[in-house]
């Protein structure tokens, strides 16, 4: 099987990479691009810690062979994080104690980003559904669900102040 060149826009920058057949997005992000903020957990789509945005949608990067997403826009936790300070979702997680060991946190935040991109005003059920593919073994989820809802409020407030 031959290697192939795949091109992806990762965190706003177009990247080309030579990959072996079947190479997954999480491998490319962590090993090839050095973006270790995306965690690699179960490698079989069960834990959600590798969640990133692909063309704006939250997806598990361990299940995506990069050849199948040629040309896609990929956003990781590094791309979400502003040069200074934190993204409103990160602020909500930090201030709401929604993180303990931190292994699920990048995935939870990217799942939240995917939710809020398509639904800026989610209900509690929407929040639960959005993170239901992501496992947390520390918090018991309560604080995370609260943080997702708080993040929605923070992003709406930020947009209002931008508009004003």
């Amino acid at each position, binding site marked *: 099987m031959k290697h192939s060149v795949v091109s992806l826009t990762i965190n706003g920058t177009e990247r080309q990479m030579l990959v072996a057949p079947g190479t997954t997005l999480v491998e490319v992000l962590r090993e090839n691009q050095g973006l270790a903020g995306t965690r690699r957990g*179960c490698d*079989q*789509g*069960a*834990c959600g810690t590798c969640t990133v945005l692909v063309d704006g949608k939250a997806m598990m990067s361990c299940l995506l062979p990069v050849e199948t997403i040629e040309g896609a826009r990929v956003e990781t936790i590094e791309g979400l994080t502003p040069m200074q300070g934190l993204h409103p979702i990160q602020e909500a997680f930090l201030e709401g*104690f929604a993180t*303990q*060991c*931190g292994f699920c946190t990048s995935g939870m935040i990217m799942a939240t980003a995917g939710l809020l991109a398509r639904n800026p005003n989610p209900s509690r059920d929407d929040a*639960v*559904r959005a*993170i*239901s593919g*992501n*496992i*947390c*073994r*520390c*918090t*018991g*989820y*309560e*604080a*995370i*669900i609260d943080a997702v809802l708080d993040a929605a409020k923070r992003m709406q407030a930020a947009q209002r102040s931008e508009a004003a």
Partner: protein
Amino acid sequence: MAWLKGRGVAAVNYPTGMNLGGDPSQALIHATTTGGFVITLSSVDLGQGIKTVGAQIAAETLGVPYENVVIDTADTDTGPHCMGTFASRGTHRIGNAIMMAAREAREVMMSVAATELEVDPGDLVTDGKGRIHVNGAPDKGMSVVDVALAAHFKLGKTISGRGMYMKPKSEVVPETGEMDPDSCQAHACTVADVEVDDETGEVRVLKMTNAYEIGRAMNPALAHQQIVGGAWMGISHALYETTEPYYPDRAHGPTDFSQYLMPGPGDIAEMDSVIIERPSSNGPYGAKGIGEMTANSPIPAIANAIFDACGVRVTSMPFTPEKILRGLDALRGIAN
């Protein structure tokens, strides 16, 4: 067929630390040139919050702002010794070691300030905001930054401290089994409200009410989060997690993570928890350990609630639908 409601109660007494061949942890602390304090540990923070609580203890003891303390959980090859993060011992053992190290460093810090200010060290106090001054005379003082600079560049001193806490090995009395295995005990009680589907054997936890007596809660937000997360883990142990066969044999059991059951964000129970503070005599600032205990009392509380709901006494974990249904069959006199 119906959802049967039940309520169960369980309590736990949980030891802080354990009887090893001596149970030590050590901490080293030193000031940087600009008055930050670095604490070197081999203890690991895997999410339980020892870095946060350790920095709080150090800041309180040194009399400097929390932000001025950096915890470096270096590495077990190079750091001072720590037995590890287990037995709910971190806050107690490591916290005590940090406190002792910080006391020694504070003494040096105050003596340097006294030399610089030409006063007696006994007359000096810290304001907790980064200044040291003569008691009752806030203007006659200097910043911790200037104290650190003076120590490094003028007096040639290190502002540093060594701390260690060790629970000596307790020999067991062979005749009675008597020993002194722990340093203090934390206590808790859980009330679980559940409902049991008498047709499918499914158990839902509706509400968990917890009361925890954990000595002084060093950081109430972290302690509360430990209770909520631990209760979730207790529910998970009680109702979901197993690598053993479900029904009827191993071939139907989970084989990998995608089939290993645990409650998701849609399965959490309503949670109501209170913390009762009765300071311990030997923990740092009266703390006890609130670690592993949080996953304990939820499990028997759920078992008792299942018994209250449907009369089935489950005796092995997890309390799967199969076990509930077999129990219900037995109660109805149906052989299984």
